[in-house]
């Protein structure tokens, strides 16, 4: 079938979407990790399978929120689409679909990534945490509680990504300053302009977690 061959060929500029995604995806929400040199580290540690899959659906297994899932997806499927359209986890939002806004932030092995820039097949065998997995058994994460208390959502569409970013910050830095919170969320777009309450909530959550 003509289609099958074509879709595996690199396009004219010699750079496939897949290769591009592999480099850009497993990095970070926003530009945070650019500061810490992890962008380059992740680029080099990205898995190299050396073979082509698809375009027919393949089965990928990954741990999602502590649950082993087997998803049958086309290889071009992003992690965001796999979560939203195949695993029924629509808490993760797609806003820009190009790694600019961090609304789709989930954790892979505990690190925040843009799931719209990550291919699901590259996540095979790893552990994915989404907003739905942040409150196991309905016990809210302190950041979620603080977001409620300090009204850190208006329309709420950026909220899942924002919380995944802020909860990760507090894992890494239990004593953040306002500036630290701003830097951590600087890749997260909120169009309603709820940032002041996001900052307040995150600092309050840090205090509570002590």
């Amino acid at each position: 079938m003509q289609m099958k061959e074509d879709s595996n060929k690199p396009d004219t500029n010699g750079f496939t979407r897949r290769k591009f995604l592999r480099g850009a995806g497993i990095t970070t929400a926003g530009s945070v990790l650019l500061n810490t040199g992890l962008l380059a580290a992740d680029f080099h540690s990205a898995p190299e399978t050396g073979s082509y899959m698809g375009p027919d659906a393949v089965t990928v297994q990954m741990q999602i929120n502590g649950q082993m899932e087997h998803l049958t997806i086309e290889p071009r499927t992003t992690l965001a689409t796999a979560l939203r359209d195949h695993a029924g986890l629509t808490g993760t939002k797609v806003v820009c679909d190009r790694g600019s806004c961090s609304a789709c932030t989930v954790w892979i092995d505990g690190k925040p990534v843009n799931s719209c820039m990550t291919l699901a097949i590259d996540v095979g065998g790893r552990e994915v945490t989404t907003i739905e997995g942040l409150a196991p058994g309905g016990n809210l994460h302190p950041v979620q509680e603080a977001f409620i208390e300090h009204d850190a959502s208006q329309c709420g569409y950026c909220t899942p990504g924002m919380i995944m970013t802020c909860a990760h910050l507090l894992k890494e830095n239990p004593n953040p300053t306002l500036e630290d919170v701003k830097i951590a969320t600087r890749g997260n777009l909120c169009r309603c302009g709820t940032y002041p309450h996001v900052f307040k909530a995150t600092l309050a959550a840090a205090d509570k977690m002590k």
Partner: protein
Amino acid sequence: MDTRKEKFPYGIPDHNLTEIEREIPADEPPAWPVNDQLQEVGKRRIRVDARAKVTGEAKYTSDIRLPGMLYAKILTAKVPHASIRNINTQEAEKLPGVHAVHILRNEDNSYPDVKYVGQPVAAVAADSLDIARQATRMIQVDYLEKPFVIDVEQAMKPEAPLVFDAPIARQADGGDVGVVHDGSKGQGNLRGPSTSSFFGGPRGDLEAGFSQADVIVEQTYRTQVQTHVPLETHGVVIDWKPEGMTVYASTQSTKDVRDELADYFDLPKSRVRVICEFMGGGFGAKHSTSPYGPVAAILSQKTGRPVWLMLERKEEHLMAGNRPNSIHYLKIGAKKDGTLTAIQQRSHGTAGVALGAGVGRVAQILYECPNFATEQYDVLTFAGPGAAWRAPGNVQGAFGVEQAIDELAEKLNLNPLAYRDKIDQSEVRKVLRQRGAKQFDWSRWKPAGSSTGTIRKGLGVAQSTWPRFVDLDSTVEVKIYRDGAVEVRSGVQDIGTGTKTIMAQIVAEEFGLKTADVIVRIGDTIFPDAPGSGGSKVTGSITPPTRNAAYKAKMELFKQIAQQWQTDATKLVASNGMILHKDDASKKVSLKEALQRMRTGQITASASRSDDYGGFAQPWGLAHGHLGSVQFAEVTVNTDTGMVKVDRIVAAHSCGRPINLTQIESQINGGVIQGVSYALYEDRVMDEATGHMMNPDVDRYQIAYSMEIPAIEPIIVEEYPALSSTDAYGIGEPANIATAAAVANAVYNAIGMRMYEIPITPARILKALNHLDQ
């Protein structure tokens, strides 16, 4: 209609609070005291849907997944002006997973002419979005390209290619779009002018006014096109079954979408149900689902399956609306004592292929001036249609007017705040200026040029006005249940402003409950009709019927209890979860038990928005008075790099009786941040050679992110106009109008060069400073 007299709090607490007697409908509740004496209203309460939002459980339109659902993708035009000779969909239809392809056609079956890049041409429904995307790329469109024009000033020239060669009526979508005209007048691509608003037309005699002036400011101010970028793009999920159409819509108006689709497909309104439980931002552009809504409906009809159609980000920038730009000429004259003698205004702006690019009513009504005239022109261009955008027109207008007032103050050698005290008649803005100036410490203000060195600081102030709009077609139902539930229902949607929560607060106040005890079911057209979220009118329209319906249901319950107690229902009160007898402490029952004693399983009461007490300024729902705002800005300018940083904004606002202080502060923060973003960063960049938008994303289209957020200090001034049973009004639009002007005035104060054009980019700052050095 039976009426009774009732005394209401009237005025501003700690300033001029008094009482006023109003004649009100007999079945409306007694006057509430000021917020101090209420339990739930006027307090900080957690959003009733906050938990759903922080856990990811909230289902937005884009999250709807129905059995058998298909995903649709629109193919958009890649050229700005063309007729279409042929569209070949054969290959796309053959792609496995594709269920339907739809081509947009005119009524006579011809292809519509393309008038802008991004205009929908065709659409595909498929098993997945990836397949639908792939299929749209396989559709071949044969364009006969035609000349086009993008730039406003080029488009005004007589030889410019015509966007339409006949009068047009298409207004920018949504709510109040500023000063409008019917599109029938004008030559070439020029339409208009509009010379009046619902506040009237020209006043006095301009020439006579300017001849009395001792000082005159005459300038042209320019603003850019701003796109909306709600995080959830526009979209619908439509399930069209023979018995009717169910539409999940990311919309600011369930009612308008129902009417639009019923009208489009000639269906009875009762056969179209529109649902919007959670909505990911709108800012004015989501009143209509045109053009994508009908496309999704047709695809659902063709396939017999539910169809999901959300715009992609690029499509949202191109086709779903924008704030038109403006070239805004102002001439304002004043006497030596500051009295304004004449205001002349003329504007040109483009809403692309639509009308609605005015500069609003700020110049007309913010300050008293006997001689006034405006001419607001639309310029048609080959670009996507504009739409209402948070205070449409007026944000552009305020950017010019409030700078011109500062320029006048400087010519008169007056402090800009003192000058506003002199010429502004509004009592509430006087209080806003006083409280704002104190919080901001305006006494630090020094004339422009006082700050020297590489890093310069500046202070600025600007103010605005917004009407109190009321939609009389606003109905609410309150149901109380024998099992103890108290529920409020309405078709109104909560677009993130907190409508659900304020409705719960009001019902809770009436029943002596806690806000969290009230069940809120809204955002569905099976519930009573309610206003669209536009014009900041929802709070002022929906809270009085919410209270009145709750009161009616409560009185029905009281009647039944009073009968058992052999007393009169008017003797009972609900407080703290109890029903009490005012004069007999022995008579009390918990609300829960009282509900169990109801004669029927439920009591339902409904109420519609009644006329304002004392009537309206305009009978369609323009209320007396206005919503005030005064904003103070503190900026830093780096004269080496041209970078501007907004350090701090003090935003003083009034919105009648505040219902939820926290939510109001959230909205003020949002309005200020969008204003800062508009003043400094956002700009739709069009390539004039190709007609393409060069930055249809969220990285090259620059928006303020966390690092750009100033310290924001909202001040909320309670004001009781005694116009309805809640006296509450919205804050959405007022929060956004003055910011860009305040920032521009502060930048001038910092560097001594005035910025007549936004966004205030480093390049523009450096250009201005070089000019200064010459």
